[in-house]
């Protein structure tokens, strides 16, 4: 059966890259090369950012998250502004713009103003290398994974500036916490990505998607542990709730955001969602096969598949946020160094061995499925054993108190009454 749409024509909506390529090819004949190059970037930016990222931030990030968390908490969530409350994010934005952007008198004004702007820029830049479809990528550079890692490490500087400049003790707490946390979590994060890189043999995001397409298996099936570790690490870097110690609401008020108000705060809030979305897109691309879906992309536009997967990962972020309590700062560091990092090293060891075996078998296609089965089992065993080794003993914690019939004095543990 042949796909009902012929490929590589400008009207093929399965890949909008075809359309822009057609326009650019037409323009290339009349305009100089440099102008066309810039035009391509502008078209890509407009298409990805204004048509996908910004609406996603507003309607999935702000509205959808509040709505979903509301359902998890047995309440309604925003439902008043517009149909189903859909215009709530816009109303919020208007309110934030109207509000006064306060600066404390003792604060470092310049740094405090620059920090939100610095925080926004990487969130926009991240989308440059994420492929929405086969040709739908703004800059298909061969080292796009490195680029993504480098750019996604930048916002911590902005958050540290924000916490330092406000001259508030809670802000300082938040700033110091986020710096120590990012330092701890950067190493397991990169180690697990190294597993995916060793497996696929490329550091280009498009190359990783092509690998998934070629072998008809997603990286996550061969590298399940890597996805889990990466998800935890990226939650920590993004300050999502189970590990949001930098703005821990119940402890240090709002952390580095304590003294921010108005749109300065709004930029931080909005771009937190932007980073989470970008991380979801990145996970989709590296681990979930990007815009491919085992041949389904021949029928459904690939960018729709990509968006669906991205929202699915984002839903995981929302879910953990609505469920889990927060770890303490020192426990979080211990978790990174004692648990995630060794597991990442183990994972890398396993995947390197497999890669070598695979190379000796001349990249036999069926072998990947064997690796997947082995790795899934091995990951489960590894996580359990390492957790026990690290002192995880669920049976030692009684979740029900002792019951006594008669009032009296102290009853030592182990004594029956």
């Amino acid at each position, binding site marked *: 059966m042949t796909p009902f749409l012929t490929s590589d024509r400008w009207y093929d909506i399965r890949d909008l890259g075809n359309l822009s390529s057609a326009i650019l090819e037409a323009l290339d004949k009349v305009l100089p090369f440099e102008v066309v190059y810039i035009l391509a970037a502008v078209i890509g930016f407009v298409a990805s950012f204004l048509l996908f990222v910004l609406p996603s931030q507003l309607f999935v990030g702000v509205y959808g998250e509040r709505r979903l968390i509301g359902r998890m908490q047995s309440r309604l969530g925003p439902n008043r502004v517009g149909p189903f409350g859909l215009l709530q994010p816009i109303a919020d934005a208007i309110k934030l713009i109207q509000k006064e952007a306060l600066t404390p008198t003792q604060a470092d004004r310049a740094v405090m103003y620059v920090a939100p702007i610095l925080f926004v820029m990487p969130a926009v830049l991240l989308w440059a290398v994420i492929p929405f479809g086969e040709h739908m990528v703004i800059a298909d550079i061969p080292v796009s994974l490195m680029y993504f890692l480098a750019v996604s490490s930048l916002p911590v500087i902005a958050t540290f500036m924000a916490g330092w400049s406000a001259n508030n003790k809670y802000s300082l707490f938040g700033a110091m916490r986020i710096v120590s946390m990012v330092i701890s979590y950067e190493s397991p994060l990169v180690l697990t990505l190294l597993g995916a890189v060793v497996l696929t043999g490329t550091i280009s995001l498009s190359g990783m998607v092509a690998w998934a397409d070629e072998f008809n298996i997603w990286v996550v099936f061969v590298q399940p542990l890597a996805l889990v570790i990466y998800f935890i690490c990226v939650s920590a870097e993004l300050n999502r*709730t189970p590990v949001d110690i930098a703005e821990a609401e119940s402890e240090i008020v709002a952390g580095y955001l304590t003294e921010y108000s108005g749109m300065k705060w709004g930029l931080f809030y909005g771009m937190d969602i932007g980073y989470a979305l970008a991380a979801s897109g990145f996970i989709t691309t590296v681990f979930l096969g990007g815009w491919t879906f085992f041949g389904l992309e021949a029928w459904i536009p690939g960018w729709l598949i990509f968006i669906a997967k991205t929202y699915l990962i984002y839903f995981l972020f929302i879910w953990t946020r609505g469920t889990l309590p927060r770890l303490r700062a020192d426990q979080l560091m211990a978790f990174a160094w004692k648990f995630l990092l060794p597991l990442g090293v183990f994972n890398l060891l396993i995947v390197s061995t497999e890669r070598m075996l695979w190379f000796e078998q001349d990249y036999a296609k069926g072998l990947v499925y064997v690796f997947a089965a082995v790795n899934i089992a091995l990951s489960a065993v590894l996580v359990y054993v390492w957790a026990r080794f690290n002192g995880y003993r669920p049976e030692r914690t009684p979740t029900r108190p002792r019951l006594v019939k008669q009032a009296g004095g102290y009853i030592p543990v182990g004594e029956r009454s």
Partner: protein
Amino acid sequence: MSGVIKSEPFVINIGPQHPSTHGVFRIKATVDGEKVIDAEMVMGYLHRSMEKLAEERTYTQNIPFTDRTDYLSSMSNNLGYCLAVEKLAGIEVPPRGNAIRVIMAELQRLASHCMAVGAFANDTGAWQTPVMWAFREREKILDIFEVTSGARLTCNYMRIGGVAFDLRPEFEPMVRRVLRDFPPFIDEMEGLLSGNEIFIARTKGVGVLTPEMATNASLSGPMLRGSGIAWDIRKADPYCGYEQYDFDIPIGYNGDSYDRFIVRLEEMRQSVRIIQQALDGLPGGPFRTEVPLALRPPKGEAYARIESPRGELGYYLVSDEGPSPYRFHIRPPSFINLSALKEMTVGGTVADAIVVLGSIDIVVGEIDR
């Protein structure tokens, strides 16, 4: 290297306006990095001088004041005060009045523990979900209070010699609904939090109170029971006919924040049992003894206490045969439970201090009175 990195302690004010102090309460914490090395409590922001005001009003007029001390468990506070006046004046309460009081006090315990458990989970960082679930259940109980007494929070329902009104016909089905819904809700909370590894890591071993310290620091309620001391006024000194009901005292293992949490959850289960028994055996007859409006108890003093959701709630009354109490003293459980706060917080981190404060379950209206 030019030298060692120096650090010096600094003071942070946790409160009076802070998301986790549950009101206008302040801890002046001296911290070295994240570690708390000294903690000082500052309170009194909500002081309304109730003990003085009560000396100006008749015994019956004082009942609304007791609503406003511990505003999360007004029924229990009404009950404690009425018991003290009855003890002072030698008034007997009819059986139906006693049974209604028991049902109301236990419903109030459920509502108050809902708040305590939810807010405690919120303090550990479980963002709003447990507290919203708890509020969903608490709402049903507040509806019962509204039907019965006309108010949801400050009920003012107990009277000297009984209760203010008889039960309405809607009352029983509503309570049965709560009894049906509550055990699954407690299991749900247990599934969400009790076995959660992060929750255990945050609360286990945090704010440990040895039984000796808990006794010496005059603690009461779940704080005392969490440390393994089987002490419950309902068992030890039964009032309102608690001796007729079959229930157990939950006690913890080593007196940390986690034990206080599971003790509260289990107490909710026991409360459901008590309400079930009281509702099944609800006697008929009068619900109140007629008491003169300007009651003048004989000269003397009385100390009556009940097991409020937060601990031992005592009222010490001195009468000089006047129409108003000569001395009206409240023994507020959450105020006295704070005596050990410094011992529990010092040595931990700021995050631990918040967890400890949440596990004490303070109500600032009661601390400051």
